[in-house]
């Protein structure tokens, strides 16, 4: 065979083999779905909650994915993940989930429709022929069910499963749960100071701030009421909150028992009167501030022109002592609670009510009572002994049938309404509060969550404490109360961090470091040195054999 023929044959064989492999890979990529998710929380597999949700769909949900064909490379890899996830959803939906892909590239009408639907074009910088150019790309989706529609404006691969499941849940629910936030409107602008929290809650629920206006009752359509940093309520307002619970409403209370001036660090007890009715439901808020000597967050303090980062025991970092049995806190890594007060069980807990501690300090919790000294630079001079410290409860969930705090008492009068009646007779409209006929003394099965701190989810402290789980904790609590525990599993599993032990000393760190770097190499060197005599002996043996052969 000539050399040319040989080379041609070889080339044909190699190219054929390459083509076969390309086809096999293409077919496998297109048609074969088989994968094992080894991660602890099965992050890359559809969660049981999502599976259950799509399995139970009664009618067809249509997901319309608007993804441009022309995408920067880092987004086109994400496209594959999105397609994989949607395939998994479809596999469990028993035909009740339809997925359609669209590229709005040259379709102006579709672009206008998307603008209306809330799927904006992304302006992305890309490199074209060695120059930077701006390009417009779409990377969003809409979820449609009957006449309802939800939008995921920009697909975030990190939260896509949660976003999709939340949207499917929301469109397929007969009525989205209503969440209302009650705060002291004179001192706190919820939409501004709790922007991150509000945005996240509004993804899934109808959530907005409310006030109890002139003796009106809290509307019956409200499912969860969140009270954030309240001042004293009037007796009538307290009565309406009580009746909200008696009607089966669920309550989350973030109450500051100690008022802190965040510039001067002056602290004074100023417990709002909602604590009185909470005590009747079984949860006592204490007039203290807890320091944790073993597990505290890092805080930044200004000293003149300098800013110092330091461990600050008044910012309690709850890690080990999160309740690992309860879905709300099961998968959280750490909550950082700045200036938190402790909670205890009331002397007489109502019958049929169960209290669960969701978060506690470590055994090294120290109770500070008035007068408080929060100066971080003075803390080191104190002497605290073992007997001074213990574990303190920081978040309680009360569940069961509650008895009204106003049982056997007349309905308190609405002060504002009665004052205006006196001044402008007969102008004031009749109060639309709970009437004697409507009032209830016993609630159905419901839940109350209390945490004596409102700062931990405020935007400023979400940033300062660097704790992603602060927000997740509250979101989980709302999900659990509003729609059950379906979505908690999806959200919490993505937030798992793997921090190191706090108690590692410098000496231990150095030992681990050098043991890891040099341990195995030293063993290999010793093994090599030990083998030298054997190798030499074998070489001598072979040399001897060769010499004998030559002779």
């Amino acid at each position: 065979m000539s050399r040319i023929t040989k080379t041609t044959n070889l080339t044909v064989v190699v190219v054929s083999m390459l083509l076969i492999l390309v086809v096999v890979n293409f077919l496998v990529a297109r048609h074969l779905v088989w994968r094992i998710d080894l991660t602890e929380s099965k992050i890359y597999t559809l969660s049981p909650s999502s599976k259950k949700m799509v399995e139970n769909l009664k009618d067809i949900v249509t997901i319309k994915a608007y993804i441009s064909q022309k995408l920067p490379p880092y987004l086109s890899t994400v496209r594959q993940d999105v397609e994989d996830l949607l395939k998994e959803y479809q596999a469990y939906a028993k035909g009740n989930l339809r997925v359609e892909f669209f590229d709005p590239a040259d379709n102006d009408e579709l672009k206008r429709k998307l603008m209306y639907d809330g799927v904006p074009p992304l302006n992305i910088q890309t490199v074209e022929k060695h120059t930077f150019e701006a390009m417009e790309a779409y990377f969003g989706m809409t979820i449609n069910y009957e006449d309802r529609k939800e939008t995921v404006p920009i697909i975030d691969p990190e939260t896509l499963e949660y976003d999709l499941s939340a949207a499917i849940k929301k469109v397929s629910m007969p009525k989205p749960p209503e969440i209302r936030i009650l705060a002291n409107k004179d001192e706190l602008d919820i939409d501004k100071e709790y922007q991150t929290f509000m945005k996240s809650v509004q993804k899934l629920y109808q959530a907005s701030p409310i006030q109890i206006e002139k003796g009106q009752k809290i509307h019956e359509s409200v499912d969860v009421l969140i009270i954030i940093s309240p001042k004293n309520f009037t007796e009538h307002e307290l009565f309406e909150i009580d009746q909200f619970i008696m009607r089966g409403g669920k309550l989350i209370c973030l109450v500051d028992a100690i008022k802190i001036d965040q510039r001067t660090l002056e602290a004074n007890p100023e417990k709002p009167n909602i604590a009185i009715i909470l005590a009747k439901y079984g949860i006592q808020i204490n007039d203290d501030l807890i320091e944790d000597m073993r597990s505290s967050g890092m805080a930044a303090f200004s000293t003149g022109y300098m800013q110092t980062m330091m461990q600050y025991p008044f910012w309690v970092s709850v890690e080990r002592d999160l309740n690992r049995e309860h879905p709300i806190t099961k998968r959280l890594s750490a909550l950082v609670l700045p200036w938190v007060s402790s909670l205890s069980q009331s002397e007489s807990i109502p019958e049929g009510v169960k209290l669960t501690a969701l978060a506690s300090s470590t055994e090294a919790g120290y109770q500070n009572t008035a007068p408080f000294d929060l100066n971080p630079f003075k803390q080191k001079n104190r002497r605290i002994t073992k007997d001074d410290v213990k574990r303190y409860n920081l978040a309680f969930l009360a569940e069961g049938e509650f008895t009204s705090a106003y049982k056997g008492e007349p309905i308190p009068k609405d002060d504002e309404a009665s004052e205006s009646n006196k001044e402008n007779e007969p102008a004031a409209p009749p109060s639309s509060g709970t009437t004697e006929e409507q009032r209830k003394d016993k609630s159905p099965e419901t839940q109350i969550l209390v945490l004596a701190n409102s700062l931990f989810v405020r935007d400023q402290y979400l940033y300062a404490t660097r704790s992603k789980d602060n927000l997740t904790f509250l979101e989980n609590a709302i999900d659990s109360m509003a729609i059950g525990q379906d979505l908690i599993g999806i959200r919490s599993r993505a937030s798992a961090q793997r921090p190191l032990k706090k108690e590692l000393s410098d000496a231990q760190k150095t030992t681990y470091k050098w043991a890891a770097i040099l341990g195995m190499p030293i063993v290999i060197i010793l093994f090599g040195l030990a083998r030298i005599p054997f190798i030499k002996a074998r070489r001598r043996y072979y040399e001897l054999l060769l010499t004998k052969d030559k002779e």
Partner: protein
Amino acid sequence: MHNTIVLVKKEFRSYFSTPLAYIFLVAFLVITQWLVMRGYFLRGQADLRSFFGLVPIIFILFIPAITMRLWAEERRQGTIEILMTSPVRDMEAVLGKFIGGWIFMGLAILFTFALPLVLKYTVAPEVGTDKGPIIGGYIGLFLMGGAYLAIGLFSSSLLDSQIAAWIIGTCICFALYMVGDPFGLFALPQALVPFFQYLSLSRHFENIARGVIDIRDIVYYFSVIFFFLFLNSCMIKSRK
């Protein structure tokens, strides 16, 4: 099959009959583990992300260095004639060298077990480590190392010079590693981007190192290994 097993044993033993294997193992372990451990306590996270980010790049240099001599040495010592005239098929000879090298490389990867141990003893006990990405990362390294090894072996069969074989092996590994890099993909026509991304060794490794074992990634790595071993055997045949 029997021939392959005999060759595998011979190849694996030959690594340890010279100081090369010891130098390779010690250098690989000290360099990678030092690079990982120097920032470990500063990052404060008990995972091996930095390790699995580093090793594929270190392997680009190290693996062609252990394969460069495999065919070149046979030629230099004149043993290739003995091998080629013996009743061993070309593919068996190639497989013997490859599997011997793969076991040696697997050993090198296995010797980094000190890192997962450090993770186990330093992680906060209430959270523990996530074993999925660690197991996935090690499987990914083993498969990716296998692909590098097949490429290195092929480049060693091309030339008599070991240095030239190392340079070619390194270049092919680097090219296949970088082919899916966004920086290079920007310049490509849009229609070709998914193809080049699929071709990239790094992209498939990233998938597995997340802790997800996907049939597509496995098929891809075995295709690369098989293709370069096949090329290798063709090359040996053509040189006969």
